[in-house]
């Protein structure tokens, strides 16, 4: 009957002068890392510093789609483990994260897109992750109401159906992890803005915050869209472009969309939340910025795309639009690194718009990395050094350009 006894999900904690581990960023990545540091590695002195309230950033602004249908095996393995963690965490945290295993469907709108989709399906099935290439009719069986005619500017050629995917209640993940971390002794400090990082003899020694200085032995930068700005406090330049990415919801409806779908050609992805709204996300704004501003352009763009894909959506209305930051790397794969020139400094950044689906699994391995000092094998592909070697991860085929030419 615990649900009838409202108890604090996480306890307020006194700000101590020194913690063994300090995590910058009270989003899913930071909280998950803190949780696993305490849970798996038995570390008792961990603080999470959040400048606003926990889940303020991308953790509470994404469209909550989770999946493991990436392009390269290295990524698929990581995200697959991430997918399997949702039920485990739900049980461990005793907090219902509302994982809705509805599957995802990526639509292909050209022969080239279908070639890419075939490669994805083969890659997934080869490593044991279920995916299936669908023809247009099969797509319409998964998503009733898709327009299969030649009328749309980009007619549907087929799709990639990925049954293991789904949606998760994003705020619940933040609160559940905070609950679990707090119960294991992690101190969560909200309204604590990091203003500087102290080092001495090539070691990280602490952080200066709006609430005072805090000493630490190991420091994790897990600040989502603000990761590169925090790293810059130490003069570390990261190949990250923070871009706003917008999302919106419609009025709520009884369930009619039973699978999350996306379309690269239209730059749109959508799912129906458990509450019945259609939550839909757009492409990123092209300008590098930290504003979290929504724009009228995307509201219209999204409507144009959705009604072409599914004409019945002409009957729905948008209720709310918001935006968050996506920390884009040139190869759309993250940077998880412990060799940044300062002993005790760890970085988990550059997740772009994949930060939500990867949160718990990234936290699990970042905790292992930070606790042991040894890079876990599964994180090897996500070294920062790959950019220096001009060895891109291949997570996206297209040559990326963000804002300006590079």
């Amino acid at each position, binding site marked *: 009957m*615990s*649900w009838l006894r409202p108890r*604090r*999900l996480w*306890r307020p904690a006194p700000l101590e002068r020194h913690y063994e581990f300090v995590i910058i960023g009270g989003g899913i990545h930071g909280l998950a890392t803190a949780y696993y540091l305490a849970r798996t590695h038995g570390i008792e002195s961990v603080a999470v510093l959040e400048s606003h*309230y926990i889940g303020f950033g991308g953790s*509470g602004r994404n469209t909550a789609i989770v999946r493991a249908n990436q392009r390269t095996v290295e990524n698929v393995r990581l995200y697959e483990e991430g997918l399997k963690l949702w039920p485990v965490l739900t049980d461990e945290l005793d*907090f*219902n*994260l*509302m994982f809705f295993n509805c599957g995802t469907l990526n639509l292909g709108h*050209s022969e080239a897109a279908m*070639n890419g989709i*075939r*490669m994805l399906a*083969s890659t997934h*099935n080869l490593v044991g992750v279920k995916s*299936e*290439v669908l023809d247009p009719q099969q797509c319409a069986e998964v998503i009733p*109401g898709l327009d299969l005619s030649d009328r749309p*500017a980009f007619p549907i050629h087929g799709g990639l159906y990925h049954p293991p995917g789904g949606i998760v209640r994003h705020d*619940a993940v933040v*609160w*559940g992890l905070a609950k679990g971390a707090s119960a294991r002794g992690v101190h969560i400090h909200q309204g604590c803005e990091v203003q500087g990082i102290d080092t001495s003899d090539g070691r990280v020694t602490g952080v200066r915050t709006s609430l005072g200085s805090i000493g630490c032995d190991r420091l994790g930068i897990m600040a989502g869209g603000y990761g590169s700005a925090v790293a810059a406090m130490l003069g570390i330049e990261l190949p990250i472009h923070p871009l706003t990415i917008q999302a919106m919801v*419609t*009025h*709520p*409806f*009884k369930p*009619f*969309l039973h699978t999350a779908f996306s379309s690269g050609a239209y730059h749109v992805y959508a799912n129906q939340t*458990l*509450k019945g*709204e259609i939550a839909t996300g757009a492409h990123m704004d092209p300008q590098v910025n930290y504003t979290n*501003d929504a*724009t*009228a352009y995307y*509201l*219209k763009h999204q*409507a*144009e795309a959705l*009604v*072409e894909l599914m*004409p*019945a959506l*002409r*009957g729905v*209305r*948008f*209720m709310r*639009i918001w935006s968050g930051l996506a920390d884009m790397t*040139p*190869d759309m794969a993250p940077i998880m690194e412990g060799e940044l020139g300062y002993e005790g400094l760890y970085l988990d950044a550059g997740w772009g718009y994949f930060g939500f689906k990867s949160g718990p699994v990234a936290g699990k391995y970042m905790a292992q990395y930070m606790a042991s000092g040894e890079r876990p094998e599964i994180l090897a592909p996500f070294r920062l050094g790959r950019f220096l070697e*001009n*060895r891109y991860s*291949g997570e996206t*085929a297209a*040559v*990326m350009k963000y804002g300006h030419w*590079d």
Partner: protein
Amino acid sequence: MSRLRPGETCRVDFSRPLEFSFLGREMTGYAGDTVASALYGAGVRIFGRSLKYHRPRGLYSMEGESANTFMSIDGVPNECAETTELRAGMAIEPQNVRGDPGRDRFGFLDAFDRLMPAGFYYHLFHRPYALWPLFQSGLRRMAGTGVLDPGAEYRNGVRTERYLNADVAVIGGGPAGMAAALAAGESGLRVCLFERRGRLGGQMTWRVRDFEGEPLYRRAGALAARVRAAENVNVFTRSPVTGVWGENLVTGFAVGTEDDPFRECHWECRATTVVVAAGCMDRPLVFNHNDRPGVMQVGTAWRLARTYGVRPGKSVAFSVADDLGLEAAIDLDDMGVRIRFIADARESGQQGPEVFDALCDRAIPFFPGCAVSRAVGRKRVRGCVLRSLKGGRSRRFRCDLLVANAGMQPRIGILATAKARLAYCTHTHGYQPTELPPGVFVAGSMTGLRDPRSIEASGRVAGYGVAEWCGGRLKSVAGARAPAREAEALPGPGAGCGIIHAPAIGRGAKAFVDLDEDGTYKNVKESIARGLDVPELAKRFAGFGLGPGQYRVAGQNLAMIMADLRGDPVETAHPTTVRPPLGAPSLATLAGPGHDVHKRTPLHSELAGRGAVFRRAGAWQRARHFGDDPSCRDEIRNVRTNVGVLDSSPLGKFRIHGPDALNALQRVYMSDMSKARPGRCKYSAMCNDMGQLMDDGVVVAEGPGDYYFTTSSARAGDTVEWFRFHTRHDDWDYNLVNLTDVLGSLNIAGPNARRVLERLTRDNVSNQAFPYLACRRITVGDGVEARCLRLGFVGELSFELHAPASYVPYLWDLVMEAGADFGIRPFGLEAQNCLRAEKGHVIIGMESEQRVTLTDIGMGWMWDREDTVSKKVGAPALRACDRQPGRLNLVGLRVEEGAKAPRDGTLVVDGDKIVGYVCTTRSSDTLGWQYGLALVHREHAFPGRRIHLCHEEAPGQRVTSTAFVMSPHFYDPRGERLRS
């Protein structure tokens, strides 16, 4: 049910009855009714059921502030009855209920609220986990409201778009907005005035109070007439604003009129300045059972009577907190509605003695310092309980309508989307802007003004302020000072009421802070107890303000209640962020008429006439193939053995000239471009800073410092910016002109290409005079001069003619005529794709990707490694990873016979390891076997290596094959045919 006859304020035309149906029952409304007023007028009191507890809900608000009256109208779900105009024949059904909302089978849920505290679902249903999907599907079915049929068509009326431009956008057509529009218009500014309702005047349109010798509605009417007549003022009624965005972009939509209800228009107005005069709305009073049908806002009851001529109730109790509420009660009494009592949450501060006199005259009991603490009655209000705010005994009254509010609150939505900084004002007890963005002005009752003269004056002040801000054009800026002086002499913002909630709240009854999501006062407490103690977190945890009404019902109250419960001063309360769009535009309206923006080549109709099947390729519609064979075997054979013609017009075509043209070319191209010569095509490629292939094409020198060059079709649009960006620090003098759309082109390819060309021109096109890679200007037909480039992308003798786009159809006719004897036929993109793949020519994006550099795909030969002065884009990266192990390389494949055919996208595997993939593979009639172009790890990329291919497009359906690695130049590897 009888209607009132309210006179001139009424917008309903009782001479025009409209028949409609509710739940299949025939009802009558009148022209000018909204769906909500018609239903209420026809006696409907329960409009639907609430989301979580399935409590009966009635007409509460008038502008969609709550979702109480969301209905299915003519099959369209989630239509707001309050803002939808009634039309004859409408079929209206309630939502989230089966059958009559008066008898709902889920009504029992209301009794189980104790089991459903805020966020209860986070603590339930997950153990054992196996049962979760079952609960989840139940939760999904219970959630949501309207029913959408994914196969149905909705809102198929005309959709248009307007893009406006104004010096000032005035938002709100009330007295302040109208005064602002007039003042700005008189100053010579171009004004757009946007009003959500069908007519101007705001709340003045239903107020009959005498003011300076005439009723307020007439005063507003006179002002409206002046606005309509004003030269520079464009009035847009029925036009809700959805938001003010960056740089004062104002967006909204215009809803259809009665005559043309389905016509909706999406509009955007780029305004130099914005005047926000959005007015006020009721701040809901939070008390026990404040959601019962029969509890409504002051504005709702008043407008029902005055605007729609609907008797709101027979015996009405008022619990208000400002003078407007008193005025409404007195006015209703004058219309013959019995007022049981008026409670005013304020102890004092009411308007002068005339209000008290008016109450005495009418013998209406008046209770200052009191508020209604409870509504009595389950399915509709039958009475209420009144309490003093200071405690003490309660009194019970019978009534059938309970009109309640906690005073008025400013409509902050538009200001919030404009990113004004807002703070709680302890005088007006509403959120007031403390900092306005550049060019944004605010006026009217939303600033707390109550006196009609002050409201109008504030509009004039804003109007002249705008004129001053816009600068220059104003004839008499000095005149702008006068309204400010005038406004100062008038009464300022009135004192508001800071009541947070009614007394005796809770105590086993539900007091709703948010109606749409069934968020109660108790839920606020529960959120705080969980540690989710600021409005932003409570909103996410318990859903406050997440329903269709958004911030309108919960916004200010939630912030005040949370501050109160935490023991903080109320002025520290921050409401949740207001998100656009404010007026809930439909996707149909936002999407507009749906333009498919694409380019057609100059030969589009010629190709269509020959049976072309078009596909979108970037911005273009291009012929994929001709006829009904998607594999294009005949098209391919015809090029290999005879002659074909391709419409290559989308090819990027540029001229660069000027003293630094060569420098610029050296910067972006990988080859030594100083070797580009007149009359000869130099093939080269561009890379990005990572050495990834961006583009390829040929460059021809046409004179000193004058070059013509081509790019791939996909890159044509980006090329000018690419040059400019990569030479931005050099201050170079060159002109770069994009000729892509100006010039069309067609490619004559095949062993008989020269024989066709010879018939078109008298110029010498023999192999000696016009060798491979030559470029000449030739005269074709009746004197059309064309650039002719002898290239070989498809691996055959071929001539590409570039000529002004308008001449290209003529050239096409000539070519088809001249080639008729040879059996010339057009070929499309797919044939070209196969032909070039057989030749081993790369298409960017098909055989190149992020992981591979120019050298990785075997094109490193063109890179001028010795050049260290041009700073070639990508050269440092190429140098850095020149001999790096583990990279992907481009190879050719010969698929072993008898194996199951691989497809584009098939993987190259080594055991269970993926070591590459097949980019393009076809079974070739020309070669007699299946070839492929693949990117594979360097360790496997040597000729003769046997590799394994595998694809598994569905779980368990694995297809494997084997292939031998070879040079990708399968066809004519020595290039003899190109040079023949």
